[in-house]
């Protein structure tokens, strides 16, 4: 009996010593994740894996097949995040610009081809076909906004004349719909609008203004004023994630959305963006025993786990989706402490796998890794547009 009690006591003391030290195995200097100027080692390794996917069609096919079995949106968003990352990488690493531009063009052209050939439903979840879009002809702001931002990002890095009319056409469609919509709310799915998609689309419009000398600043200001007034969750002060075309909330504030929304807003309204980040950090971000993670919902909102939140780990209420997107928020606003702790969690719990200088996270997928790549590289693209230097 004495031996068992001594053994149990030793186990308890050992656990008390080890658990607070565990994160030290995984914590790395911030410069391994994000580096200014230049590219961090993690960015290079993640990018190498993605570039391999676009040079080896069989490998890409296999990855996309796995993702599309769960969510066709991820196939599309994986492309968007990769193009936006490559744009930032081209600005950070000019000698590699030709390779990055070539890959960006390849992705943009293939995405446009698939959209044209298979129709917009190819990149949407099946329920998009269950109802009719209220505004006809049907358009999804999700697709229009992200494709426009891909085209714009490419042109900010280096002008490509063939893409100029394509961007103008996309932007005109979006702007026209904003002007016709009584509440300035556009559908991504039938009568379903997303904050994420609106912010990305407005970024694309802002970048088109920068590139082509148009001026939609009044539209952007008007939309943000409307959002502050009508699309903010009262208790947390965070922007809600989804709503109908008449502004009725569908989902409340969500971590899988708000971190990217704060990042997108940085190009449109720096103060509002920072306010949203700080609120999200307070309401959703956590650091426990040196490991950073994020909840999907603030305490004042109850939601159900869904395809965006990913599985929620009970007890700590960790959302894989929100924690992954938190990298983008923390990277945007230079929150080094949170970013370092998030990176420790990533190396602890996302099962990194390195082969020949290429990195992927087994617990993630192509879109997750592309979003992480974006978090390691973001900055120069927004900076170039904000400072207003000639493209």
């Amino acid at each position, binding site marked *: 009996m004495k*031996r068992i009690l001594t053994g149990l006591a030793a186990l308890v003391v050992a656990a008390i010593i080890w658990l607070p030290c565990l994160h030290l195995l995984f914590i790395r200097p911030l410069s391994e994740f994000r580096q200014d100027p230049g590219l961090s080692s993690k960015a290079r390794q993640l990018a190498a894996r993605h570039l391999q996917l676009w040079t080896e069609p069989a490998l890409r096919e296999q990855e996309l097949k796995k993702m599309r079995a769960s969510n066709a949106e991820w196939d599309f968003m994986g492309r968007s995040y990769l193009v936006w990352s490559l744009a930032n990488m081209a600005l950070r690493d000019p000698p590699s610009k030709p390779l990055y531009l070539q890959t960006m063009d390849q992705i943009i052209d293939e995405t446009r081809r698939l959209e044209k050939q298979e129709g917009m439903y190819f990149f949407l979840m099946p329920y998009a076909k269950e109802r009719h879009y209220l505004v006809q002809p049907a358009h999804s702001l999700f697709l229009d906004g992200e494709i426009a931002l891909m085209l714009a990002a490419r042109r900010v890095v280096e002008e490509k004349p063939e893409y100029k009319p394509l961007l103008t056409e996309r932007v005109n469609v979006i702007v026209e719909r904003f002007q016709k919509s009584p509440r300035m709310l556009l559908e991504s799915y039938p009568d379903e609008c997303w904050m994420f998609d609106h912010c990305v689309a407005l970024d694309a419009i802002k970048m088109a203004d920068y590139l082509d000398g148009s001026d939609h600043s009044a539209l952007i200001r008007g939309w943000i004023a409307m959002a502050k007034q009508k699309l903010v969750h009262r208790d947390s002060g965070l922007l809600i994630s989804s709503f109908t075309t008449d502004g009725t909330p569908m989902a409340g504030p969500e971590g899988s959305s708000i971190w990217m929304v704060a990042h997108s807003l940085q190009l449109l309204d720096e103060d509002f963006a920072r306010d949203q980040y700080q609120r999200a950090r307070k309401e959703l971000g956590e650091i426990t025993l040196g490991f950073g993670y994020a909840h999907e919902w603030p305490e004042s909102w109850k939601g159900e786990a869904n395809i965006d939140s990913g599985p929620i780990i009970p007890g700590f209420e960790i959302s894989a989706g929100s924690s992954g997107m938190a990298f983008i928020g923390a990277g945007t606003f230079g929150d080094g402490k949170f970013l370092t702790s998030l990176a420790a969690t990533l190396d602890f719990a996302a099962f990194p796998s390195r082969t020949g200088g290429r990195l992927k996270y087994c617990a993630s997928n192509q879109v997750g890794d592309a979003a992480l790549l974006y978090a390691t590289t973001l900055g120069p693209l927004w900076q170039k547009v904000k400072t207003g230097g000639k493209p």
Partner: protein
Amino acid sequence: MIKLFWQRLAVFQRAEFLSARDLLQRAGAISVLFLVAHVAGLREFTSVLNGTVGSTAVNVKLGTFLAAVYILLYLASVILVPVLVLAALMLVVWQRCVRKEENFSGPRT
């Protein structure tokens, strides 16, 4: 003969429950199992954590099971194994101290 050889190897001898050797044996067993799972490539199946199937070669149920096995072994090896080893070290030190004390306080002849 072979059985006798293995039995004589101290590491495989049954230890008293929660003794230092018992803890080290458990730590060793977990480490070996994790190594086997890792070499077998089960890490790939952990993509179930984001709702993506780990491999299109096996069905979803089997993939989820393999992922769960890998994740449990991984967590055991990074959380439990160091705790077991630390506890075993503490027990060894404790036992030595107790023995020393007994030697000092024993009858002097």
